[in-house]
C-alpha cells in the first residue's frame, strides 16, 4: 500500500528524509553524545560516578518529591477537572484558561513568583526558601495542568446515564464516583500522573532560585547535573543525565502503553 500511494500522491520520500535528518541533528546526535560521555571509561566507571553519595541522594530526593507531587496532583487535578466540568460559577472560563498558565509561563518566572510570596520577603510569615517544601511548591506549580487536562476531556465525554442508572439502583454519591466514574477516569489519571512525574523529575528553572541548591538537602537531580557542568565535571554530570534520559524514555513508553490500554475497548 505505501508504495502505491506514494506514486499516486507523489509525496516525495525526500520530505521524510529531510525530516529524519533534522530530528537526528537536533535530537538524536546530541543525546548520543551524552550516552557516549557517560559510558566513557566503561560501565564500571559509569556506575562508580553515577552512584556516588551525592548523586544517589539527589536522585532519591528527586523521586521522593516527584512522588509527593504526583500524589497531590492526582487529588487536586481531579478536583479541578471536576469543578471545571460539573460546576458552574462566574469566571469559570477565566479559570479554565488560567490552568494553562504554567505551560505558557517561563519556569524561572514561576520559581520567582513562589519565592516572592512564600520566601523571606513574602510578608505572610511563611518562608520555604532553601527547603524541600519550597521545591515541592515549585514542582506543584509547573505540573498543575497535566492531570487536569488529561482528566477533563474524559469527564466531559462521560455519559451521565451511567451515573443516573447507578443512583436509581440505590448507590450513594460517593459510591457512584468510586464504582462508576473513577474507573473511567483511571487511565486518563494515570496518563496525567505519568506526564507530571516526568516533568517533575526534570524540572530546573522553577526550582533553581527557591532551592538554593544545598547538596543532600534541596539538591535535585537537575541541579546536580547543572552544578557538575559548572564545576567542569562533565563526566559526573553525564552519568546522572544518562540515567535521567533513560527514565524519561521509560516514562514516555509508559504513557504510550497507558494510552493503548485505555483505548483497548475502542478498537
Amino acid at each position, binding site marked *: 500500500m505505501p508504495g502505491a500511494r506514494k506514486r499516486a500522491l507523489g509525496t516525495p520520500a525526500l520530505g521524510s528524509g529531510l525530516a529524519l535528518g533534522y530530528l537526528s541533528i537536533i535530537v538524536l546526535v*546530541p543525546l548520543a553524545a551524552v550516552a557516549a560521555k557517560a559510558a566513557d571509561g566503561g560501565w564500571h566507571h559509569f556506575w562508580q560516578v553515577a552512584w556516588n553519595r551525592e548523586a544517589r541522594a539527589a536522585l532519591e530526593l528527586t523521586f521522593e518529591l516527584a512522588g509527593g507531587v504526583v500524589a497531590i496532583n492526582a487529588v487536586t487535578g481531579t478536583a479541578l477537572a471536576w469543578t471545571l466540568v460539573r460546576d458552574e460559577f462566574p469566571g469559570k472560563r477565566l479559570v479554565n484558561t488560567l490552568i494553562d*498558565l504554567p505551560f505558557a509561563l517561563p519556569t524561572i518566572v514561576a520559581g520567582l513568583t513562589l519565592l516572592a510570596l512564600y520566601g523571606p520577603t513574602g510578608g505572610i510569615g511563611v518562608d520555604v526558601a532553601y527547603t524541600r517544601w519550597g521545591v515541592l511548591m515549585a514542582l506543584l506549580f509547573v505540573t498543575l495542568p497535566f492531570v487536569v487536562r488529561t482528566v477533563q476531556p474524559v469527564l466531559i465525554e462521560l455519559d451521565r446515564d451511567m451515573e443516573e442508572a447507578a443512583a436509581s439502583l440505590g448507590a450513594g454519591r460517593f459510591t457512584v464516583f468510586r464504582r462508576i466514574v473513577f474507573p473511567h477516569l483511571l487511565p486518563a489519571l494515570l496518563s496525567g500522573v505519568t506526564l507530571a512525574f516526568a516533568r517533575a523529575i526534570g524540572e530546573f528553572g522553577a526550582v533553581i532560585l527557591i532551592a538554593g541548591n544545598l547538596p543532600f538537602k534541596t539538591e535535585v537531580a*537537575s541541579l546536580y547535573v*547543572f552544578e557538575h557542568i559548572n564545576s567542569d565535571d562533565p563526566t559526573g554530570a553525564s552519568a546522572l543525565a544518562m540515567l535521567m534520559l533513560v527514565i524519561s524514555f521509560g516514562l514516555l513508553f509508559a504513557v504510550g502503553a497507558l494510552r493503548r490500554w485505555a483505548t483497548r475497548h475502542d478498537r
Partner: protein
Amino acid sequence: MTARRGIRAFSLGYLAIILVAPVGLIFWRAFEHGIHPFWAAISNANAVHALKLTLEITAVVVPLNTAFGILCALAIVRHRIPGMGFVNALVDLPLALSPVVVGLALYLLYGRDGWFGHWLLGHGVQVLFALPSMVLATTFVSLPFVVREVVPVLREIGTQQEEAAATLGASALTTFRRITLPAIRWAVSYGVVLTTARSVGEFGAVSIVSGGIAGRTQTLTQYVQASYENFDQTGAYAASVLLAMLAITTLLLMTVVRRGDRSS
C-alpha cells in the same frame, strides 16, 4: 450540593495558593511604586538586549520547527517507515526530558573536545557561548509542539481529499499547498503559538550553553535569574512581569485559535 461547593472551594483554593497569588504578587510588586520604576527597570541596556536576543532566537526557531514539524508529521502519518515508533518517541522526548540534559548534550557535542566542536572551532565557528548553541538548545526543547498538533489532524482527515485532488490533476506540490496545508492550518497555528511560548520561556538548556554574559549572550529569562541573584529585585520582577504578559498573550492566542478552529 454542598459536596460540589466543597470541591469547588478546595480546587479553587488550591489554584489560588499555588498559582494565582504568587503571580499576582509579582505584578503587584512590579507596579507597586508606579509605572516609572517598572519602565526604568526594563529599559536599561541589558534588559533591552536580553529581550532582543530572546526574540531573535525565537524568530529563527519558530519557522524552523514549523517547517520541519509539518514534514515530520507527514512522515509519521503517511509513511510506514519501520521504526516509526522510535521516531515518535524522539519527537515527544523533549517534553519529558530535563532541559539540563539538553544543555549538557549540546555542551558535550560542541565543546572544545566535542564531536562537532573540535572541528567547528578549528574552522573558527563559535557555537557554545554564542547564538548558534542557543538556537540549537531552543530548537530542541520546542520541537514537539507543531508535530504533535498536526499529527492527529492529518490522521483524521485521511488521504481521500488528496487522492481526489490527484485524480483532478493536481501535482504533489499543488495538492500539498492547496489541500493539505489549508486542512491543517489551525493545528499549525496552535502549534506555532505553543512553540513561540516555549522558545521565549526557555531557560535551563540555554543557561548551560550560553554562559549568560550580560549584554552579550543573556536571554530575558537568564536576565531574571541574574538580576535576582545580584539583589536587583526590581529588575527581576519587572522582567518577570514582561515575560508573564507575553505568557498571558500566549494564552489568549491559544483561546482565539481554538475558537477559530471550532468555528471552521
